[in-house]
């Protein structure tokens, strides 16, 4: 008998009937004191939360302004920039390639992680912004893969205001509705951090030292 079968045998023998009572259907609004009740204030809450964690949040009126913002942010650190190829970035950030010129690294040309590690700024889209926790939820397939949002020291997220949801519950529900052929999703809440030495907070332990979220208002 294989280990798998032996383990299953033990599991089955250990089973006792589950409680007949159905699990209560509990929503985030019932659990969390800080669940946002006013939909109009979601952006403000998102901004407050993420800034508390020393993330940066910018709200821009349209796509052109978003491009401006990303260029300005990239300029503030210098070095090479990699942008998630194709849509939705092409329409979210019109004319970005021309403006960054040779600082722009072609994602297709960088294969191994060693080259990748020299990129200073990674620009990606996201699937959801979560107001209650100040988080960004993204999947590999929508955000340029696993490395782009974690290897470069500066991660810039560009998203539309319509992607904002109140809480984790809505984001996870939304994730279920999206195309399922992804292998990896990350829920990101602030720049990388550690407090392993004397409980003192340090940013940029291994992941990005800076995280900026540019929110584009609906046109």
């Amino acid at each position, binding site marked *: 008998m294989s280990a798998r079968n032996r383990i299953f045998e*033990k599991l089955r023998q250990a089973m006792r*009937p589950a409680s007949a009572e159905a699990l209560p259907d509990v929503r985030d609004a019932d659990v969390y004191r800080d669940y946002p009740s006013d939909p109009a204030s979601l952006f403000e809450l998102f901004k407050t939360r993420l800034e508390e964690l020393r993330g940066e949040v910018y709200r821009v009126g349209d796509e052109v302004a978003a491009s401006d913002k990303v260029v300005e942010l990239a300029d503030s650190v210098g070095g090479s920039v990699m942008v998630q190829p194709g849509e939705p970035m092409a329409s979210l950030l019109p004319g970005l390639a021309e403006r960054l010129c040779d600082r722009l690294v072609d994602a297709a040309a960088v294969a191994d992680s060693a080259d990748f590690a020299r990129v200073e700024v990674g620009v990606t889209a996201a699937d959801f912004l979560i107001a209650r926790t100040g988080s960004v939820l993204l999947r590999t397939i929508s955000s340029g893969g696993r490395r782009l949002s974690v290897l470069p020291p500066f991660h810039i997220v560009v998203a539309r205001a319509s992607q904002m949801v109140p809480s984790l519950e809505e984001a996870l529900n939304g994730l279920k509705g999206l195309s399922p*052929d992804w292998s990896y999703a990350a829920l990101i*809440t602030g720049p990388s951090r550690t407090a392993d*030495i*004397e409980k003192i907070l340090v940013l940029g332990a291994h992941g990005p030292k800076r995280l900026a979220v540019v929110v584009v208002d609906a046109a």
Partner: protein
Amino acid sequence: MQEPRAFLQRAAAKTRDEEHRLKILKAIDTYTRVVEQRKHTQFRDWRQARQLAARIKDDVLARLPELLQQFEERITARGARVFWAETAAEARQYILDLVARRQARVVVKSKSMTTEEIGLNEALQHAGVDVWESDLGELIVQVAGEKPYHIVTPAMHKNREDVARLFHEKLGAPLTQDVEQLTMIAREHLRHAYVSAEIGITGANFILAEEGAIVMTENEGNGRLTMACPPVHVVLVGLEKVLPSMRELALFLPLLATSGTGQQITCYNSIVRGPRQPGEPDGPEEMHIILLDNGRTELLAQPEFQHVLRCIRCGACLNACPVYRTIGGHTYNTPYQGPIGSVITPHLRGFRQWYHLPFASSLCGACSDVCPVNIDLHHLLLWNRHRAVEREHTAAPGWRLAMKLWAWGMRRRKRIALLRPWLRLGTKLLLPLLPGAQRRRVPSMAEHSFARLWRDHERQKSHF
């Protein structure tokens, strides 16, 4: 030396180490302040939230075979391989075989207590593999040649001076006491490990049955890099860590973050459903998930202990434990320290060697108070003692005899009265033979028992 005796020696040495005590109290005080505040600001009712979490986990434990099977089917459909390991040795061997097949020379790991449980680092090093711990705390203890001190904060016992010295001596880094610079030394040091490793090994905090996924929670990003760069990703996870679906993360991620570090939610939570899929720009070619039993099914089979498998390894019970705070994490000599360790270790590794752990507790119950999944830890410690004595016969012959005599005497008032003078004399004579700390703990019996004083009291009253 036998483990129980060695434990006592380590404990005695640590309790004398005042510097250690102050370091730990300071770290845990900071932790407690933040956590208590977060519970209050984030949850409407913390107690209700943890009861709900306990209910969900109990439900999972009652449906474990079905849910594990669902997980296996779904993640395998996307190209991951699932291996069932009954023992630590089987899990180790699977990884060693994989290392050989991939001809891996460098392995990068993110923090995982389950890999500690199976002694993975030693096995890999023995096979000539370069193993890099990537979590800052883990890196510190690895460089120091130590074991993790705490399941969540492995280097809690090191202050900045200790780390500065270590990094200077072992990594050749410039001497600095700046915590930020120390962190950057670790960052630079490990960048190369992520990109050169052939295999990345992580643990997992949750297994999602419905989505066929594993979830890993962290703050530093080392786990994400470990899952993003190397061509092979190995996950070692205890088979009890199941949640029915992604939906439950909305409760469990904040719960774990709050109890673990006092955060609203940890910085990074990764949901992984397989190796790189068609259409994805990167990600590992292979993903292996090792589902570890190693004694868990035995816990599951005992109705009284089953619910300890709710544990989400948040570390709160360690921080709350006054014994842990006094003797420190290393004294336990186990991958899981503190109350949770003292409950499960005798079951996972045998009562023979580990029966002393549940006894090394005052049964105060601070652990049960803080546990986010409502595990009755201090009662389980007590049931462990019962099992140790009654079923595993671990009590020393001297103690057994003493307890028998005590019970014989205590059954009847007459016998106590008879034994009393002899006991008083006996304690006086034997006291000097005991070591100081124990000598101070022996009570001196009063001249007269209450029973006798009461007689006088009653007599006096009747005289009036």
